[in-house]
Structures are given as C-alpha cells and as structure tokens.
C-alpha cells in the first residue's frame, strides 16, 4: 500500500513537469480564480466598512428639557446602556456642548459674534447613542416614546434623521444582497473556468487513462496522480497569486483609506489571515478536485 501511495505521489509530481503547457494553463487559471475569490472577500470587506462608516456618521442624540436634573438624565443613560444593540451612551453636559459649539463656530464670524454677545448658555444636556447598526435606532426611539421618561425629553435627532437612517438601512440591506450575489457569481464563474480547464487537462490524458484501465488499474490508482497534480498546481498558483496580492496591497496601503477612512485591506487580511486563506485555498482545491473527478468519470466507466 505504501509503495502504491509513493508511486501515486511520484506520478502526480511527474505529470506536473511532463505536461508543461497544460500545467501552465492550470496554474494560470488557479491564479485568476484566486484573484476572483480575493476580490470577493475584499468587496465584502469594502461594503461592510462602507456601511459602518455611514452608520458612524449617523447622529442619534437625545436632548432633555431644561427642568430635567442631571441625575434623571444619568438614569436614562444607564437604561439605554443596557438596551440590546447599544454600544455606548455618552453624556454631554450643556457646558461641554456650548464649548464645542463655540469651537465649531469659530470660522463663522456672525455666529461667533452672536455667541459672545449671549450672556447665557442656550444649549441643553444631551446623550449621544452609538449602536451596533442603524436598525437599533428606531427601536430606541420607539422605546423612549413609550417609556415613562418621555416627559423628560425635549427632542430626539432620530426623528430629524429618520429619512436618512431608513435610507441607510435600505442601502445596507441592498448592499448585503449585492455582495451575496457577487460572491455567488464569482464562485460560479470560477467553477466554470476551472471545470473547462479540467476537461481539457483530462482530455489530454485520456489515452493514458485508457491504457491504465486496459492494464487493470483500479480507479483510484488512475485518479490519485491527477489529484496530487491538482494539489501541486493549486498550491503553487495560490501562493503566487497571494504573493502578488500582498505586494499590491503593500504598495497601495496609503491609497485605500483615502476612499473610506476605515477601509484598510492589509489590516483586514492580517487579522483574518488563517481563516481567509483556509476558505480561499479550500474553495480552489475543492472546485479543482470536483471538476477533475467529474471530467474523469466518463473515461473510468469502461
């Protein structure tokens, strides 16, 4: 059995060097498909970061009436911190809010002058809520509307931003669907390319398969070297394309954050290096093996 396995591995290795043109085509296909799959991953990451970026820019602030005490506001803060999907709730006292406003108004001389002339702080205390995603905000607004604390509230910016929030939720959902479709299309397209190349590879070896069948070789003795061969070119092709991709991302590292500040592919890849490579290489190997298996079946039936 060991001799047989050694022979199968050796034959697969020899096949790679013996069929140079076919090996080159298979290598090229693997490189191309690897790029497709990584394009799928990076698109997924890009859209994910874009949604996050937009959501972070959403203003969900709760303003309180002037007669509400700070203790009562802090109580509401504590309740909201326990709300499902809420990441954090920041309390902004009216002094801080006023200072911030003054800073922002520096560039506008009319407002700056008006603020100077004003003897009192016109702003109120408020809470800024950050949630995991934009779908949480309507729920918070609904919760506050029905809670006994409703009487404390002056207004919630959600109602002003409601249209924008709803639009973002809708865009997020559409983008998620688009990414899923994109990945399915990429996988289907990659499978087709690999399957066609596999058909050509196996066809070029059909006489050898026929001879081995005539001699009395069992199907695994015939399939084995092809599977070893597939592993060799899949692995080599994958390593080459991964190398090119990493080099490309290193060279363009500073460019990507200019599109969206939180889009940093090299960080995404380094943080998920093992799992992404396992998925990508696993996909390529599986598609290659299944394609070869299917292409070979008709020659093995005799």
């Amino acid at each position, binding site marked *: *059995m060991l*001799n047989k396995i050694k022979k199968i591995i050796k034959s697969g290795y020899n096949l790679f060097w013996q069929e140079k043109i076919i090996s080159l085509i298979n290598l090229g296909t693997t490189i191309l498909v690897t790029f497709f799959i990584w394009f799928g991953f990076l698109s997924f990451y890009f859209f994910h970061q874009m949604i996050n970026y937009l959501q972070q820019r959403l203003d969900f602030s709760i303003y309180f009436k002037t007669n509400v005490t700070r203790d009562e506001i802090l109580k509401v803060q504590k309740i909201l911190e326990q709300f499902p999907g809420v990441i954090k709730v920041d309390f902004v006292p009216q002094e801080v809010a006023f200072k911030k406003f003054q800073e922002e108004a520096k560039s506008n001389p009319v407002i700056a002058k008006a603020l100077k002339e004003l003897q009192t702080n016109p702003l109120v205390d408020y809470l800024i809520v950050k949630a995991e995603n934009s779908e949480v905000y309507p729920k918070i607004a609904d919760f506050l509307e029905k809670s006994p604390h409703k009487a404390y509230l002056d207004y919630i910016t959600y109602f002003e931003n409601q249209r924008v929030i709803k639009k973002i939720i809708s865009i997020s959902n559409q983008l998620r669907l688009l990414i899923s479709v994109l990945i399915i299309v990429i996988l289907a397209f990659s499978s087709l390319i690999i399957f066609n190349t596999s058909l050509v590879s196996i066809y070029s070896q059909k006489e050898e398969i026929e*001879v081995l069948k005539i*001699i*009395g*070789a*069992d*199907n695994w003795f015939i399939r084995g070297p092809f599977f070893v061969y597939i592993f060799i070119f899949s692995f080599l092709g994958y390593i080459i394309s991964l190398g090119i991709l990493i080099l490309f991302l290193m060279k363009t590292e500073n460019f990507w954050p200019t599109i969206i500040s939180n889009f940093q592919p090299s960080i995404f890849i380094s943080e998920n290096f093992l799992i992404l490579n396992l998925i990508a290489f696993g996909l390529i190997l599986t598609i290659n093996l299944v394609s070869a298996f299917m292409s070979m079946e008709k020659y093995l039936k*005799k």
Partner: protein
Amino acid sequence: MLALKNITKIYSSNIIALDNVSFEVNSGEFVLLIGKSGAGKSTLLKILRREEDPTKGQVYFKNKNLLELSRKRLGEIRRKTSAIHQDFKLLNKKTVFENIAVPLEILGKSPKEIKNEVYKVVEKLKIKSKLDQIAGTLSGGEKQKVCLARCLISKPEVILADEPTGNLDPLASYEFIEILKEINKDGVSIILATHNREIVESLKTRVLTLNDGRLIRDENPGKYTLV
C-alpha cells in the same frame, strides 16, 4: 477456462457486431480468431475482458461471470487476461521500463521487486538495451515486444491479442508469433485475432471464424466443427 455463452452485441445505431456467439477456450490452448474487417473480432476480444458489455449473453473466466464482477475485481481479472493491441496502447511519453513496470506498480510491489521482474522479462524478450528509451520512439516491432513484456510481467493466464502483427513488417511479425508460441508452451492460453493468412497456415492450431458477427466455423487440427 474462458467461455462465452450466447453473446450478442448490438451498438446503439442497431449495428449487430456479434450475433449469439458461444465458445470455450481451455487452459494452455492457442486459438486463432479470423474474419474480415468488421466481422466482430475486436468486439469479441473486448467483451472477453469486459472492456465492453454485451447486449445479451454471459462471459466466464474460471467459472466467474465477468458481468457480475465489481470494478475492483474486474481489474484483477484484466491482469490475468492481458491484452495486446494492434496500436500497442503504450504510455508513449514514458520509458520502456516504466511501461513494463505499471502492472506491478498497480499491485503495490516494491521498487526492488519491480526491477527484478522487469529485468527477467526484458531478458526473455531481448529488449534489455531499450529499457531507458521513451516508448514513443521505438519501432513497431519493439513497441509490440514492450507491450508483450507488460502483459507477461503480471503472469497472465490468457493473452488476448488483437491483430498484434497488423503494424509490423513480415520479419517482425514472424518473430513476434514465435515468441507467442514460446509463451503458449509455458501454459499461457492465447487468443489471437488476425486476418494474416500466413500466420493461420503456419500455426496449425484451433481457428474460430467470424463472419458478420456470427461464429461460422470452429476448426481444430484433426477436429472440424461447423457451428
């Protein structure tokens, strides 16, 4: 040892390649299978190794019905009923050594055992000097000898030869038939399909005649049967 019972083979285009053919071949027999092109000789040999399935009938090797065997068991039977083809069926990009060694590699023999066995066979067939040559570069006669060496290495009980001299010159054909006769003397049954009249006349052995897919004559020296 080898028996065909009521074999009929009809191809999808309704062409009848074999029509109710039955015969038996005993251990150590040398049988010639003759008939014009398209008579069904090649189909018959393919059915004997189950490279093709008959439309009707049964094929037995040592009382085992080949049509009921699994693919794995069929491989074993194919190594016992080796085939030689007119177009050699060699692995043309591999060396002579690699070609001859394949049946033993299939059995999982060690490299040392393989080397010993290959050397024994090539010495017997006088092709030792060709061992490192690529099979595709050999002459027709040499290729047929390599093919025969590949058969012999798995110690077959039957050799099925389909027009093995079809691509050989007269001298190489004569030499090849002489080798087959030697192998037959060692107890290996041989079924040789040919339309070379000289071979038929020189061998003086059992002759099966096929015509339009039907076995029309089964002649034995001293024994004559009209089927």
